[in-house]
């Protein structure tokens, strides 16, 4: 959006906008250009962030952790005892995991993560949160009627399954260790990692 002109002319700073640019997009660009002029920001910083979060920081990292926990019971024990320390083996970048707590689903216990006050999320293992995680509907409802919300999102749980909702209110970040699907016991760790979804690690889907 920022690099295109719509041909209607009169562009300052080399930018003109399509009509569909949102007010916040335009204002962000205005502020960005002022910060660049003051030497507080470089346009290339933004490009680096895009590449970092497209290519290196994302749920593929959490999926590796889950797959290892499924293959290696000793690692699983370490992970559940001290998630922060256990994921150091992987040398992930991306922040927001000064303290990571991993909570394990069991046959009759289901875990789900939210941040009602903000949109806290373990970036180093899951990347940036999906839009719905940050929207008012999820943040308001998942603490109050999780069974109903999960069913609406496609995860109908048996009525006797206990639900544990983790509302990340301080700097502790949470990730769900889903149950390993039946029939995947012979898969390799990397095959398993390929089938672990982001939504399963937030707790709104099965693995």
């Amino acid at each position, binding site marked *: 959006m920022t690099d295109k002109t719509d041909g209607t002319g009169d562009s300052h700073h080399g930018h003109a906008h399509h009509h569909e640019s949102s007010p916040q997009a335009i204002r962000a660009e205005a502020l960005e250009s002022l910060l660049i002029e003051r030497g*507080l920001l470089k346009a290339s910083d933004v490009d680096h962030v895009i590449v970092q979060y497209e290519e290196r920081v994302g749920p593929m990292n959490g999926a590796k952790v889950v797959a290892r926990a499924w293959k290696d019971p000793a690692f699983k024990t370490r992970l559940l005892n001290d998630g922060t320390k256990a994921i150091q083996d992987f040398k992930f970048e991306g922040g927001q995991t*000064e303290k990571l707590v991993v909570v394990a689903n069991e046959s009759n216990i289901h875990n789900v993560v939210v941040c009602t006050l903000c949109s806290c999320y373990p970036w180093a293992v899951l990347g940036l949160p999906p839009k719905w995680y940050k929207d008012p509907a999820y943040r308001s*409802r998942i603490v109050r009627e999780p069974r109903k919300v999960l069913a609406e999102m496609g995860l109908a749980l048996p009525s006797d399954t206990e639900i544990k909702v983790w509302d990340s209110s301080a700097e502790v970040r949470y990730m769900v260790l889903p149950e390993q699907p039946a029939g995947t016991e012979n898969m390799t760790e990397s095959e398993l990692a390929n089938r672990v979804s982001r939504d399963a690690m937030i707790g709104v889907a099965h693995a």
Partner: protein
Amino acid sequence: MDGIHDLGGKQGHGKVDKGQPSARNFAERWQAAVFTMSNVGPKCGAWTNTDTFRHGVERISPTAYLTHGYYGRWLGGIETLLVEAGVVTQKEITTRALAIGAKENDLIAAQPNKQVATPIKQPAAQGAQRSLNHAPKFDIHTQIRTTNQSVPGHTRLPAYARGKTGTVIKHHGVWVFPDSNAHGEGEQPQHLYTIAFRATDLWDDGEHGVQVSLDLFESYLHAGDYSNDIYQQ
């Protein structure tokens, strides 16, 4: 602060819209620009910690909070803090925005205070974990009741969990206290616990078989012999 951001348990926000599963992190470049701008605070002193940053976002226009999206909210918080710190003026931003297509009546998210701001203190150390010489006040499995008091500024105790009975299930050591740190009042580190609540103790219509947990600071919590408590059922 009983702000619009404190969404837990609120009703009327509709169904969760999962959108496209393949949606990219940054649907538009400006969103990545805002994400990157969240790092300029320490360079110019407008904010030096997450708590101040988060409170900047909490103070934006409530209408914008609900309608400008996640990065629109961040933009509002960043603008609020940069203007309060005197790094830019709102007039400069608006003039520049109007020149590139903004409308006069566009809703501006930022609501900076006229009187500037708290003195900025540098963090005492990296991250937010600290150490303290005194032991935690509450043991695991202890019953507690959360404070019923609202605070005017930043806090990590959501309104839905005020004045509620829960159980300590984990101690996380000592952390910077966001309620003071957000306002330039120092780190004042405290013990931090995970407190588990039964949903039926949080809401009259809470679902059975549901536990909601929050990470709460020691000063939010009162010891829990409630035999004479008027709330005891």
